[in-house]
């Protein structure tokens, strides 16, 4: 029995989202996504490209927290204009946070309420429209609830499968790979690309997920359990990549 925390299970779930990406730029927003990308890069996806968060590609994996002083190894230059070129070219997989997401993966982090006069102005569109139409996207939800998993998002910043289908071949690069929340992993591997429960984190019940989701999820008869990190992954997470415990502040134990 693994002693992995929920935050650590979420971390390997995000890391697993990057499987098979090879030489793609891994961009990940939020502490656990940033940690998951670093873990993937440190283990089974060594070819991932990662930036320093400013304008350089870093060949070494920078710890997310901790006091370790590490001289960066710069392997490339990636100012914003080059990020845009690269993402329109498709060589990127982004993990974005979702303030709202619906059953087809339409995503919102722009604002809550009507766009002309929102109740809460959030991040704005940022790169979500271009990201989702050009390269694989996954989402991270640290607080799975009916406020996040909603029947209808207030504003569509990231494009979901129903809207992508209407675009025909123009949406041929659209892919929402998965949604990782603090309760489970979700994908769109259904005939009509509705969100499906792909796995439950250890200790989470189907009922709990259903209760916290504001739309009808596709639920398989025997939903598997999300894998727990192995010993080496736990060592990397705890001792190397996040000794300061940023993951625990995002998903408390």
């Amino acid at each position, binding site marked *: 029995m693994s002693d992995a925390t929920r935050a650590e299970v979420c971390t390997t779930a995000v890391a697993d989202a990057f499987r098979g990406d090879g030489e793609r730029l891994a961009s990940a927003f939020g502490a656990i996504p940033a940690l998951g990308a670093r873990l993937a890069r440190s283990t089974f996806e060594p070819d991932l490209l990662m930036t320093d968060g400013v304008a350089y590609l870093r060949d070494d994996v920078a710890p997310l927290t901790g006091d370790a002083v590490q001289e960066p190894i710069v392997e490339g230059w990636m100012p914003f204009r080059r990020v845009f070129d690269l993402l329109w070219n498709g060589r990127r997989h982004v993990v974005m946070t979702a303030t709202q997401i619906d059953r087809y993966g339409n995503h919102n982090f722009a604002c809550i309420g009507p766009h002309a006069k929102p109740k809460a102005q959030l991040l704005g569109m*940022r790169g979500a429209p*271009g990201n989702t*139409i050009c390269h694989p996207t996954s989402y991270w939800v640290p607080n799975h609830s009916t406020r996040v998993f909603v029947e209808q998002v207030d504003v569509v910043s990231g494009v979901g499968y129903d809207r992508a289908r209407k675009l025909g071949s123009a949406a041929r690069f659209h892919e929402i790979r998965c949604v990782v929340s603090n309760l489970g992993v979700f994908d769109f591997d259904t005939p009509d690309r509705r969100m499906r429960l792909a796995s439950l984190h250890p200790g989470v019940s189907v009922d709990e997920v259903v209760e916290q989701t504001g739309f009808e999820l596709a639920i398989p008869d025997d939903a598997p359990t999300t894998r727990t990190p192995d010993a080496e992954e736990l060592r990397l997470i705890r001792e190397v990549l996040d000794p300061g415990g940023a993951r625990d502040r995002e998903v408390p134990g």
Partner: protein
Amino acid sequence: MDKRTTEREAVAELRDGMTIGIGGWGSRRKPMSVVREILRSELRDLTLVTYGGPDAGLLCKTGKVSRIIYGFVSLDSIPLEPHFRAVRQAGSVEAVELDEGMLQWGLYAATLRLPFLPTRAGLGSDVLEINERWIKPVTSPYADGEELVAMPAIELDAAFVHLNRADARGNAQYLGPDPYFDDLFCGAAKRRFVSCEQIVETGDLVKGGVPQTLLLNRSQVDGVIEAPHGAHFTECPPDYGRDEAFQREYATTAKDPDHWDRFYAKYIDTVDEAEYQKRVREA
């Protein structure tokens, strides 16, 4: 040609209702001394085009800007710009929100004097719904027949950018990690102003950095403003980092109108740029 000028002279060229572009990104390398001069002016109803930081918060909050074209507004270390949020939530500014790449494309189209540039960014998202009055689709005339977004050129009456070094003729250099889109802001504008940390002799520019750091040549610039610490409180590496304490205070003033009034009186309303810099040093 000696193009040296001042914030005051540059801002005096602006008129109510103009469209201005401000370079930099978030709370990074913003021409803040120019922003402060606009705040001190009587200007109204400007349209601001920006990868927004405190320029957006300040100019919208004070009513200088009534319409903003942007991909985001952020203070970086403070992800959501509180003054901009308040203005948006009051509905007191017209928000033309774009995908970040669409904004680049609009500036680039204007730079190239094209009516639009095609892109996939925006397809399927509400960016097109929000902007349906001015952003239209276009069908590829080639065999693919693909329907794309025709991102219209974003033409600017004036652009303001802040770089590390320039000469008096307008050759200008960034020494930090990212040029952002400052060259495109200048390309899209009728009048182009560069503020800089230091004006140097032309021959000294490449002593500070390789020729690839010379982002703007003099044909892209109409006015050069020497503004040491002019990007304060945003960062301007390698000359200085962000003044996080000052930025925190700026952000905090959004919660308390009295605090804002004191902040505004101390740093903007009654002082010129030299006095501002002095008060910041003494703070």
